[in-house]
């Protein structure tokens, strides 16, 4: 249990520190944020052709309303937490890699829903937008990370990462 939490915190701090470097921002975070805006806009145009993406900004050509996807809203931090939780947990690498692939898709998928919902919520009511943006969606995304991690832990073969007993992180006190 202690090993898991120490590793979890260390990997998180390492990845988060790396994310803040100018190199990671320029080569990873900013391109990903732009892609997220483009994916969200592309999905929305299926039912609303008046939406376009310019860089990390998603804008309505009908009323001029726009949202800019900033740090904390691009799902990068949530992904870092998931990656740290999966890497820190004792499991075979094959399962870790599968969990990372599926988990990142699940977290970023919900994040696309967050971006689209906030885009429309902001056009409807600014107060609700602020509430959903600052508090509710933050909690929901982290709940998503927790659930994805729990699902992944459930898929692990019994006996892995701790012999026939439950893995350390879940072993009863």
């Amino acid at each position: 249990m202690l090993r898991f939490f120490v590793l979890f915190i260390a990997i998180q701090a390492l990845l988060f520190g790396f994310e803040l470097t100018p190199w990671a921002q320029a080569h990873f975070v900013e391109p990903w944020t732009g892609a997220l805006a483009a994916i969200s806009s592309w999905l929305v145009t299926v039912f609303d052709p008046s939406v376009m993406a310019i860089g990390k900004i998603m804008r309505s050509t009908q009323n001029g309303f726009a949202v800019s996807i900033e740090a904390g809203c691009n799902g990068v931090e949530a992904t870092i937490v998931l990656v740290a939780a999966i890497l820190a947990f004792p499991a075979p690498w094959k399962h870790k890699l599968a969990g990372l692939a599926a988990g990142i898709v699940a977290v970023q998928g919900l994040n696309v829903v967050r971006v689209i919902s906030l885009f429309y919520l902001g056009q409807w009511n600014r107060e609700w937008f602020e509430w959903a943006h600052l508090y509710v969606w933050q909690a929901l995304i982290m709940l998503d990370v927790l659930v994805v991690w729990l699902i992944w832990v459930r898929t692990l073969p019994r006996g892995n990462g701790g012999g026939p007993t439950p893995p350390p992180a879940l072993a009863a006190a």
Partner: protein
Amino acid sequence: MTAAAQAGLPRFVLLTLAWLPVTFAVWYFAAPILLYPAFALAEAVLRFGFADLVRAVSMDGSTAVVLTTLKPGQAAAGGQVSVDVNLLLYSFGMPMFAALVLAAREAHWPRVLAIGLAAMLPFVAWGVVADFLRNVAITAGPAIASQTGFTQGQRETIVFAYQFGTLILPTVVPAAVWVLTHRPFLERLRTSR
């Protein structure tokens, strides 16, 4: 074994989502009381750790108001810089933790809820202090930042502490505390199908 664990993960997730509106409402309206200990902790850190920068600290609703010793600019003689920090920004994990506890509903859950919420208070205080420091050392502009006397290295540490306290801690701490306090539940959840 609790019903939630017996019924498995889907029921547990649905129960958590059902509790969220309730816990968010309680958190929002009770914030001035619920977050007062975090405010008091932040106040102590600000007063003792940054006594040269802080003149007075008060709480207005769920906002910490920090009156500084810093001057807004040479033209505004006698004026002082004041920084408002919204405690809700760093404590939205509390309703999430409460919803998780209520959905799991293990034995002694009120005690677990109280201990868990108390464990989160220092991290809320972290966010408040880091937010204040970022305001005066980074975002307030060179006229004010130069009065703080922070070195470049200290300013970079403040940025990291602020980003970590804003983007990671408010969501990770509740989930981590919940995992730590619900290990038997998690094991049952893991084995249920």
